């Protein structure tokens, strides 16, 4: 009986999904400043930001056992920062800030080249306070925050780049009357896009309903702190 229980236990341990042993990759980033990844059928896609006088944004693709399959320099000039990567099984997008432009590069599966989309330009005097992107069947959803003063009049802005289009649409000043709408995050659910942002110490969200094509009211999620919103099934999570 004990043997049977032991066998069952060993089988359970063996069959239960688990974290594989950590792999130290050959990606060497001694001045790492930002790290993001997205996975699809082709592997694990990574973007990094190196901190330097001009910054560099790098793209790497790992296979599922941690071997580097591709390395591409995305940006080496113009103090690029805040890279984010998103996509689907057949789509990859990297968005980041470069100077007073929001740059998005889309991977071209035919040419194996990262094509740059039309940049979004903001006021060159503006302070920049973060960017996020997410992709779904409605296209690329992009949010970023910028404004003329360090801690006031920072706006969180939303854009959508529909699949097959050649320009952004659906621009929205999501934060509107908020004082300091910084560090935005964006996530999607079945019928909505959810934008989270930090407003003078208060975590807030605002949703767009794609069925009614309207932005809903700003909601306060938590009374202090920077937060990240994330859509999981029928629930919207806020982490602060």
């Amino acid at each position, binding site marked *: 009986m004990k043997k049977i229980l032991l066998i069952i236990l060993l089988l359970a341990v063996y069959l239960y*999904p*688990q*974290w*594989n*042993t*950590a*792999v*130290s*990759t*050959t*990606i*060497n*980033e*001694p001045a*790492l*400043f*930002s*790290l*993001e*990844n*997205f*996975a*699809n*059928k*082709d*592997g*694990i896609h*990574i973007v*990094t930001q190196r901190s330097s006088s001009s910054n560099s944004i790098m793209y790497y693709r*790992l*296979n*599922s*056992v*941690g071997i580097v399959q591709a390395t591409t320099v995305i940006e080496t000039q113009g103090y690029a920062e*805040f890279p984010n990567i998103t996509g689907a*099984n057949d789509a990859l997008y990297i968005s980041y800030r470069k100077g007073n432009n929001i740059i998005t590069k889309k991977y071209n599966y035919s040419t194996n080249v990262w094509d740059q989309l039309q940049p979004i330009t903001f006021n060159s005097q503006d302070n920049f306070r*973060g960017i996020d992107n997410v992709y779904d069947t409605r296209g690329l959803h992009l949010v970023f925050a910028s404004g003329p003063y360090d801690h006031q009049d920072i706006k969180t802005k939303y854009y959508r780049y529909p699949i097959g289009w050649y320009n952004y649409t659906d621009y929205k000043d999501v934060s509107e009357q908020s004082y300091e709408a*910084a*560090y935005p995050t964006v996530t999607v659910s079945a019928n909505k896009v959810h934008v989270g942002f*930090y407003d003078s110490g208060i975590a807030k969200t605002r949703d767009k309903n794609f069925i009614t094509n309207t932005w809903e009211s700003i909601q306060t999620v938590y009374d202090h702190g*920077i*937060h*990240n919103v*994330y*859509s*999981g*099934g*029928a*629930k919207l*999570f806020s*982490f*602060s």
Partner: protein
Amino acid sequence: MLNYSVYGPGDDKRVISAANTADNKTHIIYPTYNLIHRYYNVSTGWSSEEVISNNFERFFSLSSTSNDLFTVFCSSGSSNIIYRQFDAAPLAPSDYSVSIHQSGSNYYPKLTWQLNNEPDIRLKTSNAYKIERRTRPLNGSWSAWSTIANLSGTTSSYIDYTIGNAGGGDREAEYRLTAIDIGNNSSPSQSVIIDYGFNRAEKTAVTGIVRDYSLEQNYPNPFNPSTKISYSIKEEGLVTLKVYDVLGTEIAVLVNENKPAGVYEVNFNASGLPSGMYIYKLQSGSFTDVKKMLLTK
């Protein structure tokens, strides 16, 4: 509400990194003294914490495909990015079906499916898709399963050339498909069944399964005054069967209606017609065929 003290947010104001999996779980990772993984399940709530790195990882990111998780992280004092995978069982291959593949005069089972999205299946050059088969006489006992193919992670079809005359007959073949990842985790199996065993004429007679259009010679021929004409229809549609004299004048309309696929027989009574050669013509879809018959009084 979870109540945790996390280190951060860092310069990118990242508090957590999150990813959803196909089993309706929302996973997060976040740094405390360690890098922690937890997931939320609607029915059971938050899981207990699981340490995925014993270091303080300032930079971290989580992503997923199907039920697999992929995380990359790096400490401030380190320079090499660390990678870990939560290796779950693959999803069952979707859209698994069997159709008939014609090669020459024979017909073989062709299995097709959608490739899995897990990168640890796509990466495999063999043993990513296992196909097993068992057979039996109709309503008989199944044979034991036997593996007939171990395919790469980028193969999405397989033709079984060892089973002939597929699509109808007195035997059945069942094909079981399983996806297996690099960690040897197996997906749930998918199964399809197809009949096989007869040649085409036998199939039509025994099972009524029709693979093609046909117009048969009338019987008897010569005839007086009536004869039977058989024909086969491959797909549902408008069917016309008409009789003409040798000058092309329409004599009779035997069929003019929508019919489902099948084998049909119609009687032609020529009691009011003079002796001679007559022509009958079948039309359905793009199919047309003509045959002659002789009335002798």
